[in-house]
């Protein structure tokens, strides 16, 4: 790799990224949704730092299932806990789940996709494709449930034999990661196969840059736009799946989440108690909606083919 090529590459990248940013900021909906996401992130950060929603677990035995009031903006639940604080606190849970799942799944997808694409046509590629194929043909919730339990069992074993604690907390995360990475891997693989035949890669080859370096230094950065979009999609899917998994009893533990609140609401709504339901679904809906629009805008901005 010569400096020349390096420079060319950076120029190319810069133009893609600056163009993307420019395009993104012209998309009004995209900007609005991005600000909403940022607002949520801020809320989550504040929770994590202990600035607010610190009393989400406090019981108020005399305030069972009350409606909105000055003390409890969104009312209380059956244990007299403040639903507003719980909803706010859940933002942190959502971001934690979303970020962990999105980052790890995308990273895993990127690495496997890169290797698979780079070695396309060899047994390595076949092997990865085989794994992806196997995972993709097990129904989603069944697979998530199975991984969840396997991780739980593993966590117990780890706890018993090595004294490692708290691993089971990530059972749901791991389950989701195990299912989400395949989509990214497939996309990255396709892109890498395309990039592989571009000049700068062939040139790097020609001057004897070692394989791994080519993959991770030259090819991987060029799939970054895909990864970014995939990560946003994984984030949304993770938050949405958490709701279903919480309902099925596979959700997060020791904390509160919108999914848990909605699961509680499944029993309350028919009794005419809506506080939990409205609070959690509104928070969830706005974030997911904003994230979806944001992901769309991002995709449009990063799509080099798209002109208008």
């Amino acid at each position: 790799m010569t400096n020349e090529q390096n420079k060319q590459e950076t120029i190319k990248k810069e133009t893609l990224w600056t163009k993307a940013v420019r395009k993104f900021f012209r998309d009004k909906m995209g900007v609005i949704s991005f600000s909403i996401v940022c607002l949520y992130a801020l809320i989550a950060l504040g929770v994590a730092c202990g600035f607010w929603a610190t009393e989400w677990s406090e019981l108020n035995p005399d305030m069972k299932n009350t409606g909105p009031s000055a003390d409890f903006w969104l009312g209380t639940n059956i244990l007299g806990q403040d639903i507003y604080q719980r909803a706010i606190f859940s933002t942190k849970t959502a971001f934690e789940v979303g970020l962990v799942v999105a980052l790890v799944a995308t990273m895993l997808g990127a690495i496997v996709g890169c290797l698979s694409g780079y070695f396309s046509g060899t047994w390595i590629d076949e092997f990865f494709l085989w794994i992806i194929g196997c995972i993709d043909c097990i129904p989603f919730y069944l697979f998530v449930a199975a991984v969840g339990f396997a991780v739980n069992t593993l966590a117990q074993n780890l706890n018993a034999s090595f004294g490692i604690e708290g691993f089971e907390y990530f059972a749901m995360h791991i389950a989701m990661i195990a299912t989400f990475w395949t989509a990214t891997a497939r996309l990255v693989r396709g892109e890498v196969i395309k990039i592989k035949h571009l000049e700068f890669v062939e040139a790097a080859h020609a001057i004897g840059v070692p394989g791994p370096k080519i993959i991770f230094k030259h090819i991987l950065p060029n799939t970054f736009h895909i990864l970014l979009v995939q990560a946003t999609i994984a984030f949304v899917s993770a938050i949405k799946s958490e709701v279903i998994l919480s309902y099925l009893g596979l959700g997060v533990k020791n904390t509160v989440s919108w999914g848990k609140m909605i699961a509680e609401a499944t029993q309350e709504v028919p009794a005419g108690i809506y506080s939990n339901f409205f609070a959690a679904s509104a928070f969830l809906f706005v974030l997911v909606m904003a994230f979806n629009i944001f992901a769309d805008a991002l995709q449009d901005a990063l799509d080099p083919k798209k002109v208008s």
Partner: protein
Amino acid sequence: MRLITFVGIVLSIFLTVSCGERKTAKGKVYWHSEDGAPTKLDPIESATTYANRITTAVYDTLYEYKYLKRHPYELKPNLAANMPEISEDGLVYTIKIKEGVKFIDDACFKTKENPKGKGREVVAADFVYSLKRHFDPKNSSQGSWLWRGRIVGLDDWGKAAREAGTTDYAAKIKGLQATDKYTIQITLTEPYPQILYTFAMGFASVVPQEAVEKYGKQLTTNPVGSGPFMLKSFNKTKAVLVKNPTYRKEVFDIHYEGYDEEKHGFTGIKALHGKTLPIVDTVIISFMKQDVARWNSLNKGNEIQFGTIPKDQIDNALMSKKPPKVIEKLAKKFHFDYERESGFVFSVFNMTDPAFGYSDDPKRNEMNKALRKAIRKAFDWQGRIDVFYAGIGEPFVGIIPPGISGYSEFPKDSITRDVEGAKKLLKDAGWTAENLPVFEYPNAASTTATQFFEQVRGWLEEIGYPRKKIKQKEFATFGDLNKSMKERKNIINSYGWGLDYPDAENVMQLFYGPNASPGSNASNFDHPEYNELFEKAKPMPDSEERTKLYKRMTEILLEECVGMFGFSRTRLKLWNKNTIMYPTREILSNVFKYVDVIKKDKKKKKNTKADGNGNAGDANNSGDAGQKNTENKE
């Protein structure tokens, strides 16, 4: 827009047909609901109330409880011709069974001589065979513990089969014999006054060997019994029972069953006196785990006819709680009754856990005891009852619930919340936020379970337990939780215990050392004095002497602070006014045969359908009676 139009069209089409009628069954149909589902209907594995209700309906047990006589319960002969002859020493039971009782017609009876598979007569040997099945090592019996070590030779028979690898059902057992076609003789190793109760349980149902041989494990869906009903279909969500056409003649004698105008008048059961059982032709049992679904379905009026009021609806459904009384709207449509469960909910510490239970270090042992007591003081029974049991009922002290033989009174301090006292206890024992052990509250994943946990966390936080040290140990299913409990991995176990039979012995054995996990003693409590007293009381029938022993045993439990007990939940039952019955889910299980349904004439039904008000209109006659009697009750 197109979607909306489409939905609109679909809806308008169905609007006209949706109130269609249930035409799956002919004759009188009673539609029952349960809040859980049975998995297996083979008597040796029918461990749940849900399963028992079906097994006892399709199979015969030797004895059963009288329908209306409750608290105290009273046995009556069912398949048995009369009450048993018991030898002086209480060891030998001789039981005659009814003659001429037939199994249902089934393919398993098909032989050359009997090509249609006509059901054969039930004989004493069938009972012997059915009991032996529990000890067959090939089977996974859930009820064998009822007779384990109790009947002479039965355990050895099982052991021999285990060693031989084959089971010889023909082998004679000294303690369990059919002395003639209709006589069963049982010899016990020691007096076991509760044994007759066990013969009223689904586990002791009489199964023909032919059916077991033909269906093997599939017996679960192909029950062949001699009970009042036959199983027509069974799956995860529904079971359908139909009248057994060859059922023996049995007449409903309400006075024999314990009818009391005061208690039972409002149900209209009086009208059923002298009717031949079973009364309805078909029983549909819907297994509805979802409270919402059950509640909606019940309220529709034309679906399930019986249901309990779910936790979340209690505030809406009741106009007063002491005593429970339903609101006008419901009282119009339904009969209402409430009943304390024959059992209780409680929490016990795992006494083998070094952090909370026994410790070899005497100092730590004392500290742990103080910790347990502090936690008990933090426990807010009223709070728990208010949130989870709709504020109905009172906790009781000790382990034997009031109303069960052997109950005695104790001072209330073990169920009184005392935050300051708890803090003091902790401080005095040397506990600080730093050295307190992690409190892991295990539960099976469900929203209610999480709410339980959150409440406990709230209480513990109040006595100075750091939030970070209170953790939820969530298991995906009850099975996993159960396993963890049986493997003694939990520090505390909160669960409900439903009495297998109405006798305190069934409660006291919960803390008997040798019954420790995987047995029913989930606390793994093993106290020499307690064990000794338990063994002493074991052969005794209910008596003042035994009550005294039980009282002392309970004191030991309270002093050692094995756990937080206890509370018997109150079940709030509603049943549609077009059904005549006195439902229960405690102790009794073969109750469908007494149910009657008021048949509506066609014309009337159409009218009620049209006003969309379900069956509100067709319960007139019994409705008035209901009103009157609810008033009487107050």
